[in-house]
């Protein structure tokens, strides 16, 4: 990230109670990671020398499972899907609300268990009778293929990779649509309704998606890595 962002973010994260070590590019990040073994890495996609994607790819290829949050540039769905495919644990679009980043960091750290690859890197997600095949962009429920809209699928994917976490409508909107706050509640609620219909889930007694009053939504069922 640029020097300005790096310096202010270091200060902010330190104030938030983290121990921070900042480096200026991907190559440095890789060598520092070897030495200091941090609990989590926040990395800009755009970096000099080695960009964030490539750094992440090399890290994962070397078998290093340190959680990574990517600071992404573009709002497009393909770009976001790519971040998860390459093994990022989460991502946040710039410019972002710094408190939101701290919330993301805490959530990822909570999810992480030593030695277990994060669910965000799984190719298939399974929760009971529900199965999401991420590469084929296919969802099956009780052995029947569900006909979801692309955004519905993206939303379900995000909820499942962040299960047991209350995610605000704004955050979901940012993830799935990339932008626009003024349509937030309507757009997200309509897609959640679509998912609930498809999954035969009820808002009052949810098996999968729970409404957290005033806060957002949460995928409550247990999600496992699929074969």
């Amino acid at each position: 990230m640029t020097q300005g962002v790096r310096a202010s973010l270091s200060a902010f994260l330190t104030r938030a109670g983290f121990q921070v070590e900042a480096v200026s590019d991907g190559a440095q990040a890789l060598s520092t990671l070897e030495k200091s073994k941090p609990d989590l890495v926040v990395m800009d996609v755009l970096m000099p020398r080695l960009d964030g994607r490539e750094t992440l790819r090399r890290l994962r290829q070397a078998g290093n499972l340190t959680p990574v949050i990517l600071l992404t540039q573009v709002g497009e769905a393909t770009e976001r899907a790519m971040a998860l495919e390459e093994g990022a644990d989460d991502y946040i679009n710039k410019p972002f609300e710094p408190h939101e980043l701290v919330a993301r960091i805490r959530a990822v750290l909570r999810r992480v268990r030593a030695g277990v690859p994060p669910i965000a890197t799984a190719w298939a997600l399974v929760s009971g009778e529900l199965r999401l095949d991420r590469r084929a962009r296919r969802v099956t429920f009780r052995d029947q293929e569900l006909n979801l809209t692309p955004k519905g699928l993206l939303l379900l994917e995000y909820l499942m990779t962040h299960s047991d976490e209350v995610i605000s409508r704004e955050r979901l909107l940012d993830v799935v649509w990339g932008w626009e706050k003024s349509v937030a509640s309507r757009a997200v609620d309509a897609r959640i309704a679509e998912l609930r219909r498809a999954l035969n889930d009820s808002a009052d007694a949810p098996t999968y998606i729970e409404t957290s009053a005033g806060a957002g939504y949460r995928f409550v069922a247990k999600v496992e890595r699929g074969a």
Partner: protein
Amino acid sequence: MRRYRLLFIVAVLPAALGFLIWQAYRFGWLSDSILYLRANLGLLIFLSGLLLSILLGIGLYFYLRFERRAQRTSDAALDHFSTEHRQFLQRLDHELKNPLTTLQVELANLGDEGLPPTQPEPNPDSSTSSPLERIRAQVTRLNDMVFQLRKLADLQTASIEQTTVKLDELLDELVTEFSATKPNLTLNVPRMPWSLPEVRGDIDLLYLVLRNVLGNAVKFTGPNDAIQVRAFEDTNHIVVEVADEGPGIPLDELPHIMEELYRGKNARGLPGSGLGLALVRAIVERHGGQVTIRSRVDQGTVVALRLPRV
């Protein structure tokens, strides 16, 4: 133009050549002989028709070729322009992001004293707000603008989801929402003998379009001015019109009103980014539709959206 003159000279050439040869016979430079031609009338008519057709065909062929080339040149110019325009938007968005991120983080560094991040935007003009709050409000505004710029740039390339959308339901929803603050708001949508046909597209984007247009009408009219929202079929299109009795848009501003960051004189005192209508136009055009605005100063404005029906 020189090209055309050349073509005309070529066109006159056979006649000129014929004239010269005729004169040559007349003045005895060549020994003239008379050609007796005998054919049945039917065949003669067919032959002259054939000749005419061949001539017309050749003419048409060259005309079309010429036309196509001209079209290609102007398409390429337009493409080039819109690519450049998009790239500009992307770069602008991109370059604004890092400084904005820094600003936001530093504000958080400075101002954790009691301002939670989700607090509603403080009034930037209020004299009771602290300098920090005022800076925060302006950064929020800048942030929104960068968001909108990104949307605009994204929209040119993003894939548009294709589902059937019932515009009348969206309009119902929006009108109900806005009538809370605007009692003079009416909706006129056909339900008899059949209801408004659906359109195909991205429901969230279309909702955003309707919301922006209706929001504009509400913003730019006085509390007692009426607003009418109406929708109807027009052969292959659905037309949605938002008509208001607001101050109207001066004639010289009309051509620019949908450009990015343009703000009319009447709009300058009001909140807004100057990107709303640009966004409306971009979305409607990605759906294969058109936006037109008719307006008379002191009488009102009609924004019309035409979208292809299913």
